């Protein structure tokens, strides 16, 4: 494995057998799903699974960079709920002035990205400038965002105006050449993330900082700036995910985005990124997200076990997927 790491640092890494572990688990799941239910591979079901993976997927791609550079962000689920709430309230407030139209939707998207950027910047500054452990910073902001959205909603649900909703709805439900928009956006984010991690200075700096921030600092890497950037990037991606999420149900409440942070972190780790930092694999994260969505989908399509046991099956498959990829590297 140490060979692989050295090669990866040089950017010429070939997938080793253990790196293919999560991919193998994904293929096994697809085969299992297809054999259990005829509708599993239908266009409708594939679209459903990919589109619902898109939110966690975009967030998980951002999370890959944060974790690779040795950080962590527990606030993303609450942040998504908060952004959704602010975005909906903002659009409702602008409605009388702007009327139902594309500019209003664009304004909403602008709000989402803006709030996401500020939220990520807040997390990043607290980690880099105030030098607080990322776990504690984001545990704090997790509670803050969650309670703010509950407060904004007065304990209920914030709903987008019906007319705006009808205009905005196609952003989730329709697409290009039969491929839903969330899937297209997720694919673009994933490819851009993969390129950024493997072929840009930013990606290499993230890995360098995650494996040893002192060495990175002495090598003239601006450690604080790169770390800050990873949180800002993640905030922006949470904003982007929210842009795709809001048209789905047109509402946000205190329970929106519950546990998304854990799903995103799990996807990153299943995909082969090291939780302690230093090595990131964006395509693996995408595979991890798909594995998590597929487990849920197959359990409902197949009626294999009592619904009470769904969590057990999920846990077993997550651990199994990680065992597949770590099997050979545990001694390294």
């Amino acid at each position, binding site marked *: 494995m140490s060979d692989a790491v050295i090669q990866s640092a040089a950017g010429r890494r070939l997938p080793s057998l253990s790196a293919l572990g999560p991919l193998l688990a994904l293929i096994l799941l697809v085969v299992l799903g297809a054999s259990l239910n005829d509708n599993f591979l239908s266009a409708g079901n594939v679209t459903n699974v990919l589109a619902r993976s898109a939110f966690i997927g975009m967030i998980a791609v951002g999370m890959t960079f944060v974790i690779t550079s040795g950080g962590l962000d527990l606030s993303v689920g609450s942040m998504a709920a908060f952004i959704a709430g602010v975005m909906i309230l903002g659009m409702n407030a602008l409605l009388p002035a702007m009327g139902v139209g594309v500019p209003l939707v664009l304004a909403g998207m602008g709000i989402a990205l803006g709030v996401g950027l500020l939220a990520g910047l807040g997390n990043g500054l607290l980690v880099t400038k105030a030098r607080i452990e990322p776990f504690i910073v984001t545990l704090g902001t997790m509670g803050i965002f*969650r309670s703010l959205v*509950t*407060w904004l909603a007065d304990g*209920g649900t914030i709903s987008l105006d019906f007319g705006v909703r009808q205009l905005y709805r196609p952003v989730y439900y329709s697409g290009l050449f039969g491929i839903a928009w969330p899937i297209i956006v997720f694919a673009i984010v994933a490819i851009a993330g993969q390129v950024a991690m493997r072929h840009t200075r930013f990606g290499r700096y993230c890995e360098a900082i995650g494996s040893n921030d002192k060495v990175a600092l002495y090598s003239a890497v601006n450690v604080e700036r790169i770390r800050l950037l990873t949180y800002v990037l993640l905030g922006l991606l949470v904003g982007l995910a929210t842009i795709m999420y809001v048209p789905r149900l047109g*509402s946000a409440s205190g*329970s929106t985005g519950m546990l998304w942070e854990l799903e995103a972190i799990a996807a990153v780790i299943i995909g082969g990124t090291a939780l302690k930092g230093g090595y990131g694999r964006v395509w693996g994260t995408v595979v991890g997200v798909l594995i998590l969505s597929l487990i849920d*989908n197959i359990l*409902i399509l197949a009626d294999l076990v009592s619904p009470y046991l769904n969590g057990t099956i999920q846990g077993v498959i997550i651990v199994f997927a990680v065992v597949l990829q770590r099997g050979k590297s545990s001694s390294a």
Partner: protein
Amino acid sequence: MERRAFLTTAAIGAATAAAGVSVPAMAQGKKAVIGVSIPSATHGFMGGLNWHAQETIKRLKATYPNLEFVLATAGAVGKQVNDIEDMVATRNIDALVVLPFESEPLTSPVKAVKDAGKWVTVVDRGLSQPGIEDLYVAGDNTAFGRVSGEYFKANLKPGAKIVVLRGIPTTLDNERVEAFQAAIAGSGIEILDMQHGNWNRDKAFQVMQDYLSKHKQIDAVWAADDDMAIGVMEAIAQAGRQKEMWIVGGAGMKEIIKRVMDKDPQVPVDVSYTPAQISTALEVTALRFVSDTPVYGRFIIGSTLITAENAAQFYFPNSPF
């Protein structure tokens, strides 16, 4: 959560200030203080419950000048225990109206209040030891499931196929589902699938998407909750199968009640399980202090079928739920 706590503190502060001003003016009669402890508004139903609690307190204060209220909302069990202890120690309450966050941990603190000679009203979730409370006010989960089941039995032909979404795995959810199954027994209605939607819109949306991929024929959906019904409707709309099936939710969310009022064929009825039960508890408890009306015992609020005809009486457009 913190913001809520802050607001509560502010509310208590305001109440104290108001009391300070009004005490000399009220010298003629004995004032009764009623402490109200409820979970904070973390989801739709509790949001509605908080709103109804505040509205009722406002109304009762205006109606009965000799009643005073202390409202505290708690986001966790420990906080609720502290709230109750504080009420007894610093506000000298005469009565406690409590919706326990969890039954077990709240039993002994509430018993201590009772042992101190205070009136105790327990709402919705019973304590784990019987006989502590003077008055018990709650919704009826068995009736909730039964009323829903009876509607399915009366409106579907034998051989009809339905899917069910369950809530968070709890005793409450089990009671509802068992009563539903008992009510449709012998009707020839087939339950194709039962999965947990956790009373959550997003989760219900995904579960319903999967049901729709899996089953070619679905005649009706028991969503068992109005939040879940909204997710279910969106999934059905996505699949373009609105004409094939109707949906019954539950609780009484204003958006759903509105649809029932407007005779939406997709949502013909709703089944009540109202967050306004806190109002019942407060009103009845207040009677104890302003009249000789006997109010001890149990007050179980029925779950009724909300139809286009009676929907208006369940419609609270200002409530957040």
